[in-house]
């Protein structure tokens, strides 16, 4: 009984520790922290069992029961009526009580007849069921490991077959490049050949591990591509080459600053200064600019001399006759002079040299032309040059004065008959059939269309967005009452101004009453 209890206790402790260790192993395996090889799995199972057995034996020895406990255990298990405990107690007493002796004798006889083997049943401890779960877990994990290994092997075989051709081609290319490359030179080719070999090996290794060999192949080819691209790029200059370049640049004034930067290692600064120096090389110097200006001015002066002579000639000829042709020629001359005049007024000095023409010169010329024009049109020489603010005083640009600054209503000088913005003109008063007014003369041939650029002034501006109410389901932007009240005054004024017959007035009044909004 005691022995059985001892072994049962040892087995119980062993199984407990084994179960705990197996659970820990299974947990580590499940979490991925522990991935044993398939061949190591028996060891993985064996070591917890051994550790558990040792721990169990140690624990059982520590907890080895005493004789009294054994006697109590036997009495409890065997229903011996406390004989063994009584015998143990009575045997230790030194008394000679008769009944105690009788009791001991009776117990001895009982013990002789009793089969104690019935107190040592051989049965598995209940705790044996504890290990069922971890064993089942480990079995599943073992099966999973085997399946994974088989799958990995299959995949490795497939991937290896898939990239075999590509790897073989890379090897072939590498060997060919190695043969072609001169061992002493063409380092690039040798480098490419080595990289090709490495790529082929990498692909095979990836396939053997069961990885995605196609992806590995693409990756290697991309790396090769990068390598070739790098090799095609010019090599960066060596330090010695940079020193030599800096020394060469130092000899020239414009590139001296850039050379200093290059020597100090600031290649970016050197490059910028070199670019600036190149740009300065293309720009003309101050002397050149002065030279060109002088040439332009000389050219202009020469041209002016020519023009003056031509004008004098025309004046003579005009005095003698043929004014129409003369006017045309003057106009042509003036056209030719206008760009020069513009430039002289506000822009850079024109090319060709000579002094620019001043406004006084032009005004004098215009005065002369005006005289001629007046002469052609029948008037006397008005003679005077236009002053500022008068018609024609705007310079040659405002050659044709389209702006009629006369009194409203006057027909004189309004050859185009454009609306003035003020009421009272013949077209606006309805004295003509055409609502646009009397047809005016056509614009003279000299008139030319010119688009005047406008610009927004600095004064206040007011803008209003007038939304239009579309037909359909959209609602009006303004309430009808507000619209009516805003427009009622205008409508009343418009009706009042018109000379309506009395009957029509009554109808119109009824109409407005009808459309008046309800309160």
């Amino acid at each position, binding site marked *: 009984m005691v022995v059985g209890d001892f072994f049962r206790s040892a087995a119980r402790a062993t199984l407990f520790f084994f179960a705990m260790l197996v659970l820990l192993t299974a947990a580590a395996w499940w979490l991925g922290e522990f991935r044993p090889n398939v061949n190591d799995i028996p060891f993985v199972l064996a070591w917890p069992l051994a550790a558990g057995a040792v721990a169990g034996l140690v624990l059982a020895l520590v907890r080895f029961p005493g004789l009294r406990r054994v006697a*109590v255990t036997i009495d409890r298990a065997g*229903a011996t*009526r*406390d*004989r063994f*405990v*009584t015998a143990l*107690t*009575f045997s230790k007493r030194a008394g000679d*009580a*008769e*009944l*105690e002796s*009788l*009791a001991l004798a*009776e*117990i001895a006889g009982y013990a002789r007849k009793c089969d104690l083997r019935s107190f040592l049943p051989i049965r598995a401890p209940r705790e044996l069921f504890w290990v069922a779960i971890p064993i089942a877990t480990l079995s599943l994990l073992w099966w999973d490991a085997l399946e994974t290994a088989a799958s990995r092997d299959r995949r490795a075989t497939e991937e290896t077959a898939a990239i075999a051709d590509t790897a073989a081609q890379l090897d072939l290319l590498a060997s060919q490049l190695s043969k072609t490359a001169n061992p002493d030179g063409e380092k690039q080719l040798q480098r490419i050949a080595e990289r090709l070999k490495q790529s082929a090996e990498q692909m095979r290794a990836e396939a053997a591990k069961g990885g995605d060999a196609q992806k590995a192949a693409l990756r290697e080819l991309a790396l090769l591509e990068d390598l070739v691209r790098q090799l095609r790029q010019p090599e960066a200059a060596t330090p010695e080459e940079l020193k030599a370049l800096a020394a060469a640049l130092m000899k020239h004034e414009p590139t001296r600053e850039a050379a200093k930067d290059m020597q100090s290692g600031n290649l970016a600064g050197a490059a910028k200064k070199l670019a600036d120096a190149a740009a300065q090389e293309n720009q003309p110097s101050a002397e050149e600019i002065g030279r060109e200006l002088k040439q332009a001015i000389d050219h202009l002066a020469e041209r002016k001399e020519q023009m003056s002579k031509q004008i004098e000639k025309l004046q003579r000829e005009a005095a003698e006759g043929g004014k129409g042709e003369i006017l045309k020629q003057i106009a042509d001359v003036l056209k030719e002079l206008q760009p020069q005049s513009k430039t002289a007024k506000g822009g850079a000095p024109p090319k060709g040299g000579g002094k620019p023409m001043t406004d006084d010169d032009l005004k004098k010329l215009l005065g002369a032309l005006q005289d001629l024009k007046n002469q052609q049109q029948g008037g006397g020489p008005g003679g005077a040059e236009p002053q500022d603010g008068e018609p024609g005083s705007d310079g040659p640009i405002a050659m044709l004065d389209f702006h009629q600054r006369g009194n409203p209503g006057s027909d004189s000088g309004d050859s185009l008959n454009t609306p003035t913005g003020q009421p009272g003109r013949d077209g606006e008063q309805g004295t003509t059939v055409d609502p646009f007014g009397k047809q005016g003369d056509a614009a003279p041939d000299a008139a030319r269309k010119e688009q005047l650029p406008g610009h927004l002034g600095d004064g206040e501006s007011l803008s209003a967005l007038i939304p239009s109410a579309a037909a359909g389901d959209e609602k009006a932007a303004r309430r009808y009452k507000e619209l009516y009240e805003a427009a009622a005054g205008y409508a009343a004024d418009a009706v009042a101004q018109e000379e309506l017959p009395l009957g029509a007035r009554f109808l119109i009044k009824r109409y407005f009453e009808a459309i008046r909004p309800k309160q």
Partner: protein
Amino acid sequence: MIVGQDDVVESVLCALFTGGHVLLEGVPGLGKTMLVRTLGEAVNLQFQRIQFTPDLMPADIVGTNIIHEDEHGRRAFQFRPGPVFTNLLLADEINRATPKTQSALLEAMQEAHVTVGGQQHALPRPFLVLATQNPLEMEGTYPLPEAQLDRFFFKVKVRYPSAGELHTILDRTTSAAAPRVEKVLGDAAEVIALREVVRQVPLVREVQEHAVRLVLATHPEDPGAAPSAKKFVRYGASPRGAQALILAGKIFALLDGRCHVAKADIAKAATAALRHRVILNFEGEAEGKTSDDVIGEILRLHPA
């Protein structure tokens, strides 16, 4: 002579050989009187029966002094002993007598003598009282108080005989053949000697601890009390209960052919020795619990 009722016979014998008294509870006609008479014949002891009634006086039990005139004409008080002066006394329906009369008997049970007229008169030895209570007719009775109940060694419930037992009873009692009782012991001295032997039966500390645990488990305030004891018991067993357990255990051990007491012997005596000493509270009585239920739970919680 007694059909069935082995536990009752055994309990009575325990009480006889330990010097205790037994309270028998059962309906009339179950052979209680036959039991006592048979026991008396078997052990060669005197037997008396008292039918307790409400008008029974203490003097009717213990005896009284009467005036006696001798042949010379002298008158003197002479003690006339009552029926209590016997070895085996059957006090039938003790709960029907008044408390005064009950106390007279209980004093005799406890002290083993009676005092009449200021004079003590020792009772014969051995002296065993088997008191009975009728559980059916409790109206108009005087149930024994708990303090008085504690003086009984055992309280034994006499159950109704089974069908087979009833057949046997009928066969034996309604036929011409009358059973005879064989004498087992010679006289009262042998009973007393056996009492001494019983007290010498040894027991180990573990067994005594078991008895103590059982008794303490009946006390609701004890940490090791049973849950039902905590809930339904008002008063637990007194030390007399532990004494009864030990003495009864010794008897049972001897009856089992052993010279040492086992826990099983203690457990066997627990119910009879403790059932009249465990007093239930109102909640226990309201829920219909009995002291036997509480003792049964205690025995389950403290197996032998």
